């Protein structure tokens, strides 16, 4: 079983299609996200990027095709049956989607409410650890309304990673933020990727986020981001790109291949 899990990719889409109100949102999407790999999803607004993440989480069910997460098919599963899979996925929503009526600490520790095997002391320790990771341990007792936009995103990251997921899904984590805060968020995403070896799907509008994901890695010893291609020495960040155009895959590959593409639609993203 364990062997089967490692042999199968973290996420696999096989001819997935979905439409709303007669309008096609995704059409025949097929790709694999390997273990430890990061897939940056680019595309114009309405091209189906966020929908793709929600399908991976089982929040939406496709009209056609099959989706596999950690070797298990999730298409057609009930909410109850999806629970074990969802516990292995962390998702950062576009605006953070923190619960307004709960404190930061309660938000981050929310998942433990459905994990009776985790003792309250252990849950508290992990909540503090996750908040320390995003440098917001001091906000434990605050409410989301008392935080800035950037802080809310960081709390959302802490909430997603607190249960040590094997897959992370980021839905435009830097959208609407100033460049400095956005860079801080991307640095956290890179740090999480390189410290835990988690597989990630990252949706973004900002090309600089994508380039940073591919071009930098987190140096644990130095405690900072380092360029992946520094002189002769190269560090594979295992970051690939997937560009969506009107619900279909327009490009799938590495950064260098993307840059070399003559397609005007793809060139628009690189301009």
């Amino acid at each position: 079983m364990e062997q089967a899990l490692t042999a199968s990719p973290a996420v696999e889409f096989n001819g997935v299609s979905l439409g709303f109100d007669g309008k096609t949102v995704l059409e025949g999407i097929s790709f694999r996200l390997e273990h430890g790999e990061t897939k940056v999803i680019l595309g114009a607004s309405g091209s189906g990027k966020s929908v793709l993440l929600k399908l991976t989480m089982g929040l939406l069910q496709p009209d056609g095709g099959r989706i596999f997460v950690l070797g298990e098919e999730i298409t057609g599963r009930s909410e109850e049956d999806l629970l074990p899979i969802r516990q292995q996925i962390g998702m950062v929503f576009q605006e953070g989607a923190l619960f307004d009526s709960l404190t930061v600490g309660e938000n981050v520790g929310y998942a433990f409410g459905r994990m009776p095997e985790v003792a309250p002391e252990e849950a508290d320790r992990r909540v503090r650890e996750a908040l320390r990771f995003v440098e917001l341990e001091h906000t434990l007792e605050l409410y989301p309304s008392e935080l800035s936009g950037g802080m809310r995103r960081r709390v959302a990251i802490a909430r997603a990673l607190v249960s040590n997921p094997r897959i992370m899904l980021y839905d435009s984590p830097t959208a609407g933020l100033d460049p400095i805060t956005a860079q801080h968020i991307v640095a956290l995403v890179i740090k999480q990727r390189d410290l835990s070896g988690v597989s990630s799907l990252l949706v973004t509008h900002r090309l600089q986020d994508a380039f940073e994901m591919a071009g930098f890695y987190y140096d644990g010893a130095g405690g900072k981001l380092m360029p992946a291609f520094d002189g002769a020495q190269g560090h594979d960040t295992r970051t690939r790109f997937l560009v969506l155009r009107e619900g279909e895959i327009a490009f799938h590959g590495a950064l260098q291949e993307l840059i070399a593409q003559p397609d005007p639609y793809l060139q628009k993203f690189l301009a």
Partner: protein
Amino acid sequence: MGLLNDIAKERVLAVQEFTTLGARAFRNVFRTPHYAVDIVRQMDFIGVGSLPIVILTGFFTGAVLALQMSKTLTTFGETSLTGQLVMLSLVRELGPVLTSLMVAGRNSSGIASELGSMVVSEQIDAMRALGTDPGKKLVTPRLVATVVMLPMLTIIADFMGLLGGFATSFFFIRLNPSQYWYSAYHALEMEDVFQGLLKPFVFAFIVALVGCYYGLTTRGGTEGVGRATTQAVVAASVMILISDFFLTKIILAVLG
């Protein structure tokens, strides 16, 4: 024709979704996990929070009823029956319906806007992603709280209405207090009490589920939240008035 078909399909689908939501919420009452803290919080919000408007509505409805009744009863020289008429009108009909309409105005809209905001800010999706069933966490506690609190609020409204009727009959009609209370008390029968408590019990399902339904089906950002809120109040009010007619018809047919 195609447009008519689409509208008809949309309506049928809405009825189906509403029924499914209600059935699930009811089934979840008997399934774990039970969110006791949320139920108590909702009871406080729906029950205690609605007290001021229910007290005011009940009191002035009773007061105006006594005023209108006494005018008619004076013609027949029967002003002593004011208490009886106020009591029966309130307990059988006006208490349950007006209380439910007031609670619908306050809580169906409140529930729809709260859940609608959670939908557009993806909090519902986040809840599902974190392994919580929004039906169990959000719908069932609101349903249970409304079902428990609405009959109680109706009893309070009935009592306040009687007090309002008494105030009018004592200060304006100059009726003997014991005459008012005697005729009111002796007019009441078990059937009236049964009818007066069955109605808010049924209306509670409408108030809670309509609010939840419109909230959870909100589309289109903040504008959609506003639309859902208005639709919830209108739909809940209309459904209460329509179901009141059929409920009364059934009760009268059964009890004779």
